[in-house]
């Protein structure tokens, strides 16, 4: 599975990142902390505005559901009290979805991963790192991490798992989403496989972030 990422690709937002996970390509941007509209303002924490744009057509209920899932993850990790009465706006543009409309697992994991990089690029305080992995289970019960469009089409269930990463190692589950037919035992296997893979994903992100830090700071006088 290929995974390529780059930060600071847009120059009119506070943070941005692109992610290329094979068939799926996503750009995420973060603006914040910025002035919220009066109706968004929260007294003690930062408001989150999550926008997901589909690769084709206008966003509909499918994108709204993805927005809510992303919000569920991000509201756990962003340290909101650092920016009370302010707004953090996260926008993800799907460039290539790499899956049929009835599936969302590949997009969701790419969106989560790219917003992680974009949030770091925007210098938004996070209480913990995180990484997502999508997994499909075939009819024969085999687990595929990062399935292709074809594999997803013939699978009986698809899953997205997001792990919190502490000290470079996956620790807690931040989010787990499953669609299809599966057993309890299969979910536990998915969680175990995802733990290994999110660790690898994070290692790749560390390289991206290392490049970012090298680029952003002047190291010699």
């Amino acid at each position, binding site marked *: 599975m290929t995974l390529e990422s780059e930060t600071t690709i847009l120059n009119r937002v506070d943070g941005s990142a692109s992610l290329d996970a094979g068939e799926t390509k996503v750009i995420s941007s973060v603006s914040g902390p910025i002035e919220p509209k009066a*109706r968004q303002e*929260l*007294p*003690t*924490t930062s408001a989150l505005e999550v926008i997901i744009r589909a690769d084709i057509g206008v966003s509909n209920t499918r994108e709204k559901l993805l927005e*809510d899932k992303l*919000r569920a993850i991000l509201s756990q990790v962003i340290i909101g*009290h650092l920016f*009370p009465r302010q707004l953090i706006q996260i926008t993800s543009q799907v460039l290539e979805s790499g899956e049929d409309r009835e599936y969302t697992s590949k997009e969701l994991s790419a969106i989560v991963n790219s917003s992680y990089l974009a949030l770091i690029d925007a210098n938004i305080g996070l209480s913990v790192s995180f990484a997502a992995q999508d997994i499909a289970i075939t009819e024969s019960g085999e687990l595929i991490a990062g399935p292709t469009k074809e594999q997803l089409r013939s699978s009986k269930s698809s899953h997205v798992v997001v792990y919190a990463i502490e000290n470079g190692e996956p620790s807690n589950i931040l989010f787990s989403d499953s669609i299809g037919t599966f057993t309890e035992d299969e979910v536990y296997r998915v969680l175990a496989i995802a733990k290994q893979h999110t660790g690898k994903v994070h290692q790749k992100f560390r390289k991206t972030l290392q490049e970012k830090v090298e680029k952003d700071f002047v190291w010699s006088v």
Partner: protein
Amino acid sequence: MSIEIPSFTVPGQPLCPTLQKTKDPKLVHKFEPGNGAILQQVEINNKKTSIISSTLVGKVQIEEILEDEKETTDGQDEEESKNSQKEDNEEYNIKKFKISVIPNLKNQYNEFDFINKETTNTNFATNLPKEGDIVLSRVTKLNLKQAFVEILAVEGSGNVLTDSGIGSNGHGIIAPGGGSGAATFSIHQASSDLGETFKGIIRSQDVRSTDRDKVKIIESFKPGDIIRAQILSLGDGTNYYLTTSRNDLGVVYAKSYNGAGGLMYAIDWQTMVCSKTGELESRKCAKPF
């Protein structure tokens, strides 16, 4: 054996089964839920039974429903149910009762005060904050002259609007009526969905009764604090006017560092201490007892 119906209930407490035998083998009592009571299906020893349970704290009231009231209703469904009733009636006489729970709203020491059917119709109407009420409210915004709050509950009668549950409209925390997705104000979701919380203002001269002109709002309240306050007036139509100028009014619950730190306890009238770090912050504290 007949089951004794409790005279005073709490939410969720079963009151009685819908059908109950009496000493007279030909007579059956049938109960229907009224205000403050609901019909529930429960499973007892693998048998499904319907019971009536309470949804309020209050006194149980039982009224007999007279048969001729029912006759006035029409429609096919009614006729069918009447037919089935007739079959039942061949064996038993059914006496119908309405069972309701009357919340003990106002003066709990005045036993003649509470039976007033008009005021028990809806929870919403009875819990509206009015002049003189003690309320719990949350601070949302400060400026130099006043603190803005939203009213959460009226003391003695519960939440201003009912809680429809955390996360029923998505995930995360969102301001009342705010943007895409969710709304999770922990106390009254329905109202915050619509952006219709009951708002209030505490002006600096209403914070305490002594040294009123030297009050600094920022040293009295912080956003996120829960405040016990009294309603001064209904205000300008948008905001209630509240006061904390009494010893037993003021901040009752606060967390340090703008709500991010640990729980704080009052150590005197103007200071609270963080239980984790020992840091001191100034507040207009309420007398805890």
